[in-house]
C-alpha cells in the first residue's frame, strides 16, 4: 500500500546536473516543485572529470546561465582553475573551461536549492510512475510514498540498470558505487519505452602525494580569469594548476599484454561507448602507431588529495591499472585511491521525445540528461533546464519553449537527439552546429536573456543591466560606423605598430576595425567613447563589427532555414495516407513525428522528394479544411 506523500506541480526524479537545473527552473517559474534524489549528499555530483566547460560545452553553460540556470553561477563560486580555450582562434569557438572543486560544488548547489522557495528536496528511490488516463500524474518510491504532480521529469543519468565493470568484476551499481535504479527501468519498459544500452567509463584516481610532479608539465589557469555567469563579478584567488604527462611504449605493452582482461575486449561489455571518450585500451588498439597519449593530472578539489587521471579511462582489472599508472613518468610510485571502471546503463531512445523533451507516449512525462543518451554534465544541464521550463509550462498550461538550431547549442543538442537519435552517447561538438558563428560564447546573453526573463528565471535587475548593455553595444556600433578617422601620424603609427599598411585617406572607424590587425582597443586610442564602457561591451562591438560579413552570411542561412521551420506539420497527420513517400522515410516520419517540415528534412532517410511531397500534402490538407467549411 502506498500513502499520499503530497501534491506538487512538478516532480523531478534525480538530482544530477539535469535534475538540479530542471527543479530550479520549474521552481523559479513559480510552481510547487519536488526534487527526489537517491542520496541528498550527492546533489550535482561529478562522477567523472572534475571540470566544466570546454568547446561547445562551455557555451552551453553560458546559455544555461543566460536562461537563468545554475551551473555557471555555481562553478564560478567553486572553481580551482579557469581557462579560456581557443583564444588564438575566432570568437565563435572561444570557450571557457573550469576545473571544479567537486565537494564544494555539491555543497554550493545543495545550499542554493535548499533555499529556493518553491522547491522541496526529498531523499527517495522512485520505482513507478503514476499514470492516469495515459498521462503521468506522479511517482511512487520504494518506501511506498506516492507523490502527485501535473508533470514529472526523469533525470536518472546512468543509474537505470547501471552495472559497473572492472576487469572481470561486474556488479549492479550506479556511478561511484551508488545504488542502481532497476525497477524504474523495468517499469519504463512495461510502459512501452524503447531503451538502449550504453557504456561509459572513468579513469582511476590517485593520491596526490604519491605523484612526482617534477616529471610533468604544469598547466596553469588564466591570470585574469573570465567567468561563466553574467552575474559573477569576482574572481577566485589562488588557482590550482593541472599537470601533463604521457603514456609510453611500456604503458602500451602492458595494455597489449592484458587486453584479454579488459572488460571492453573480453566481451563483458555489451553497451555502445562514445568514440570521443574512448578507454585507453581503445586508443592503444585503434591508434597503435601513436607512441604516446596525453595524461592530464587534475585535482578533484582544494580540500582533497584525490587526483583525476584524465586520459586513462579504463575497464582493466585493478592490478593492471596500477601497472599502467606506474609506467607513466611522475606516477611511478602512485597509489590508486579509486580504480577506474566502465559503467553500462539503460538510456531512452530519444526519438521518443518531442522537442520539448516530453515523452510522446506519456503526456506529462519529461526526460532529460544522460538518460536521453547524452554524455557530459553540460549537455545534461542544458536539457535539464529545458525540461524544467517545459514541465512547468505544462503545469501552468502555458506554451512550451523550444530553441531552434540558430538560437542555442541547447537547440542543436535537443534537435539532434529527438530528430536523429543517437547510436552512441551523444556529445556536443562545435561541428554539430551549422550556425556556430551565431552561437558564440560571448553572445549567449544577447540570445537568451530575454527568454529567461519572460519565463521569470532572470531577475528584473539583471534584465535591466542586460538591456543597458545591449543598448550600449548598439550605440557604440553606430558611433564607430559614423566617425571618420583622418590619417594622422598617431593613427598611422598605431596601424603600422599592429602590422597593417598605413591609410591613404580618411576612413570610418568601423571600417578600420574590420581590418584583421585592428582591435577595439587600438581604435579606442584615437576615438574613445564618451561613456565608460565595460570590457564586455567593447568585446561585443569588436566582434559584431569585425565579423559582420560572416555573421550576415550565417543570418541569411538562418532565414532560409526558418522558412522551413515555420511550415508546421499538423499533429494528427497520417503518414500512411500520403502516397509517394518512400517506405524508409514513412517509417522515420511516423517514429519522429516532426513538428515542422524543417525538422522533417533533417531526419536521415527522408530525402528532398519526400519533403516536397510532404509539403504538397500539407497544403492539400489546408484546402480540404477550407472546402469543408
Amino acid at each position: 500500500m502506498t500513502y499520499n506523500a503530497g501534491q506538487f506541480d512538478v516532480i523531478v526524479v534525480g538530482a544530477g546536473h539535469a535534475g538540479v537545473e530542471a527543479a530550479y527552473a520549474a521552481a523559479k517559474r513559480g510552481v510547487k516543485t519536488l526534487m527526489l534524489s537517491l542520496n541528498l549528499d550527492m546533489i550535482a555530483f561529478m562522477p567523472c572529470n572534475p571540470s566544466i566547460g570546454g568547446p561547445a560545452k562551455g557555451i552551453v553553460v553560458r546559455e544555461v546561465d543566460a536562461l537563468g540556470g545554475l551551473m555557471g553561477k555555481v562553478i564560478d563560486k567553486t572553481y580551482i582553475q579557469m581557462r579560456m580555450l581557443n583564444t588564438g582562434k575566432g570568437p565563435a569557438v572561444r570557450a571557457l573551461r573550469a576545473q571544479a572543486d567537486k565537494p564544494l560544488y555539491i555543497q554550493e548547489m545543495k545550499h542554493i536549492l535548499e533555499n529556493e522557495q518553491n522547491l522541496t528536496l526529498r531523499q527517495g528511490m522512485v520505482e513507478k510512475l503514476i499514470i492516469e488516463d495515459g498521462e503521468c500524474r506522479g511517482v511512487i518510491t520504494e518506501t511506498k510514498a506516492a507523490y502527485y504532480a501535473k508533470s514529472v521529469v526523469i533525470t536518472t543519468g546512468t543509474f537505470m540498470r547501471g552495472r559497473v565493470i572492472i576487469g572481470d568484476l561486474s556488479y549492479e551499481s550506479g556511478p561511484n558505487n551508488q545504488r542502481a535504479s532497476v525497477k524504474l527501468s523495468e517499469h519504463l519498459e512495461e510502459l512501452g519505452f524503447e531503451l538502449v544500452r550504453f557504456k561509459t567509463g572513468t579513469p582511476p584516481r590517485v593520491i596526490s602525494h604519491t605523484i612526482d610532479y617534477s616529471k610533468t608539465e604544469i598547466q596553469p589557469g588564466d591570470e585574469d580569469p573570465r567567468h561563466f555567469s553574467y552575474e559573477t563579478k569576482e574572481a577566485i584567488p589562488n588557482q590550482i594548476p593541472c599537470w601533463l604527462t604521457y603514456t609510453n611504449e611500456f604503458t602500451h605493452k602492458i595494455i597489449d599484454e592484458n587486453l584479454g582482461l579488459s572488460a571492453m575486449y573480453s566481451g563483458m561489455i555489451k553497451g555502445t561507448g562514445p568514440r570521443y571518450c574512448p578507454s585507453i585500451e581503445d586508443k592503444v588498439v585503434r591508434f597503435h602507431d601513436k607512441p604516446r597519449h596525453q595524461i592530464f593530472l587534475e585535482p578533484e578539489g582544494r580540500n582533497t588529495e584525490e587526483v583525476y587521471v584524465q586520459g586513462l579511462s579504463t575497464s582493466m582489472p585493478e592490478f593492471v591499472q596500477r601497472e599502467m599508472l606506474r609506467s607513466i613518468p611522475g606516477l611511478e610510485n602512485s597509489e590508486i585511491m579509486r580504480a577506474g571502471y566502465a559503467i553500462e546503463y539503460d538510456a531512452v531512445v530519444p526519438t521518443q521525445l518531442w522537442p520539448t523533451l516530453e515523452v510522446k507516449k506519456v503526456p506529462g512525462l519529461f526526460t532529460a540528461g544522460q538518460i536521453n543518451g547524452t554524455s557530459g554534465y553540460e549537455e545534461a544541464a542544458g536539457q535539464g533546464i529545458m525540461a524544467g521550463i517545459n514541465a512547468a509550462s505544462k503545469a501552468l498550461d502555458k506554451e512550451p519553449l523550444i530553441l531552434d538550431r540558430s538560437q542555442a547549442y541547447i537547440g542543436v543538442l535537443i534537435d539532434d537527439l529527438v530528430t536523429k537519435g543517437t547510436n552512441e552517447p551523444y556529445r556536443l561538438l562545435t561541428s554539430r552546429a551549422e550556425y556556430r558563428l551565431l552561437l558564440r560564447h560571448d553572445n549567449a546573453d544577447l540570445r537568451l536573456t530575454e527568454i529567461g526573463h519572460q519565463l521569470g528565471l532572470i531577475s528584473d535587475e539583471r534584465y535591466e543591466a542586460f538591456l543597458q548593455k545591449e543598448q550600449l553595444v548598439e550605440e557604440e556600433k553606430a558611433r564607430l560606423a559614423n566617425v571618420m578617422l583622418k590619417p594622422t601620424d598617431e593613427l598611422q603609427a598605431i596601424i603600422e605598430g599592429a602590422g597593417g599598411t598605413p591609410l591613404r585617406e580618411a576612413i570610418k572607424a568601423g571600417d578600420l576595425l574590420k581590418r584583421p590587425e585592428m582591435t577595439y582597443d587600438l581604435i579606442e586610442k584615437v576615438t574613445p567613447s564618451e561613456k565608460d564602457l565595460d570590457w564586455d561591451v567593447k568585446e561585443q562591438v569588436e566582434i559584431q563589427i569585425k565579423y559582420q560579413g560572416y555573421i550576415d552570411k550565417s543570418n541569411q542561412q538562418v532565414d532560409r532555414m526558418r522558412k522551413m521551420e515555420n511550415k508546421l506539420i499538423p499533429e494528427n497527420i497520417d503518414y500512411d495516407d500520403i502516397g509517394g513517400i518512400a517506405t524508409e522515410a514513412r517509417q522515420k516520419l511516423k517514429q519522429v513525428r516532426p513538428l515542422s517540415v524543417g525538422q522533417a528534412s533533417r531526419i536521415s532517410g527522408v530525402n528532398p522528394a519526400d519533403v516536397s511531397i510532404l509539403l504538397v500534402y500539407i497544403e492539400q490538407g489546408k484546402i480540404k479544411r477550407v472546402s469543408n467549411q
Partner: protein
Amino acid sequence: MDNDTIAAISTPIGEGAIAIVRLSGEEAITIANRLFDGINIEGVTSHTIHYGKIVDPATNEVAEEVMVTVMRGPKTFTREDVVEINCHGGLASVNRLLELALAEGARLAEPGEFTKRAFLNGRIDLSQAEAVMDLIRAKTDRAMNVALKQMDGHLSKLIQTLRQELLETVAHVEVNIDYPEYDDVEEMSHEMMMEKSKRVLKEIERLLQMAKQGKILREGLSTAIIGRPNVGKSSLLNALVHENKAIVTDIPGTTRDVIEEYVNVRGVPLRLVDTAGIRETEDIVEKIGVERSRKVLKESDLILLVLNYGDELLAEDINLFKAVEGLQVIVIVNKTDLDQKIDLDKVHHLAKGNPVITTALIEEKGIDELEQAIADTFFAGELDAGDLTYVSNVRHIQLLKQAKQALTDAMNGVEQGIPIDLVQIDVTRTWELLGEIVGDTVHESLIDQLFSQFCLGK
C-alpha cells in the same frame, strides 16, 4: 524557398526545332530582361511575345536569337510571373540560355517544381494533388538515377577525391577547435589552408573549364561505330540520325571538319563521333592497329560494333573484338536481308555477354531493338526521352560554380587573416556543394572523419 525564381528547360532536348527555357517567380521578368537585348520587357503588357537577342551580360556576346513570352501572375501556370524564352532547339543553345539565367540569379528548378508551385499556389485543384506527388516522386527518382548513372565515373571519382581532401582539412580544423589541448596534430595554419584550397580550386576550375568547352555539358555519351568496310556503318549512322532528328552542330573549339552528331535515343544522349572515319568506310583497326585503336576506342562511352550477316567472320572482325574487350559494346549483325554466312554462336561467344542485335538497316529492320539495347545499356530501360539528362549536368555546373565561389571566399578570408575557424565555414560549404553533385551531403561523415583520423578523448 517558395519565392525565389526557378528556371528549367521545359521542352525535351534534341527533339524539336524549338526549345523553351522557362522562368517562374518574383524575379523572372527582371532576370530575363537583364539578358534580353530588345524591348524592355519589364514594361510590356502581360501575355505578349517579343523578338530579340539574348546577350551574355558578362561578355556582351550575343548568345541566341529568341522569342520571349512575358506572362505576369496570377494568370499563369504557376500563378507567379513567368517568362518563356523560345530558342533554337539545339542542345548547346538551350543549355547556354539556362546557364545564363542561372548566372543571373535564378535557381535550377527541382524535378516537378513548376507543377508543385502551380499546386501550392492553388492553380491545380485537389483531385490532382496525388498526381503531383507521384510526378515529383517519379521525376526525382529518375533524375537522381540519371544524374548518378550519367555522371562519368572519372568525374565522380575526382569529386570524391576533392571532397575527401576538403573533409580532412575541415576535420583538422574541427579537432583544433574541439580538442585545443590535443597535441598530436599541429594547428592548421593559414598557409596550409591556402595550399590545400588552391589545389582543390585548381581542380574545380579545370572541371568548369571542361564544362565550358562542352566536355561535360554538351557531351553526350561519346559513341563510336566500328566495323569492316561495307558492313553498314553509314547506314547505321543515318538510321540513328534519321530516326532521332539529330542536331548537327560544329562545336566551337573543335576541329572544323570534325562533325559531331547528337542523337537522343530514348533519353540517352549520344554523341556520334566521326573520328574513326566512318564516312570513308575505312576500318579503324586496319588503319592504325589493334593497340592504338584500343586507345582511341577507350575514350568512347559506347561502341557499336557492326558485322556482316552475309559474310563469314574474318580475322579483322576478331581483331575488332579484341580491340573492344572490356569496353561497353553493342554488337550489331547487319544485313539479315542477305543469306546467313556468319556463325552467330561464335559472335555471341566473342561478344562475351554484350548485347547482340540483328538488323537489316536497309529495310529499317531491327532499329527498335537497337535503340532499346542502347537505352537498356545505360538506364536499364527505365528512361523515356527525357528532359532530365542534361539538366543534371547543368546542375553539376551550377554546383561547381557555387563551390568555386565558396572556396574563393575561403581563400580571400585566408589572405585577409580571418581566423581559421571562420575560413573553415566556407570550406565546409564547398565540401557540401561538391557533395550535392555526387549525391552525398550527410553531415555525420564529418564527425566520423574526426574520430577516425585523430585519437581523441579524455
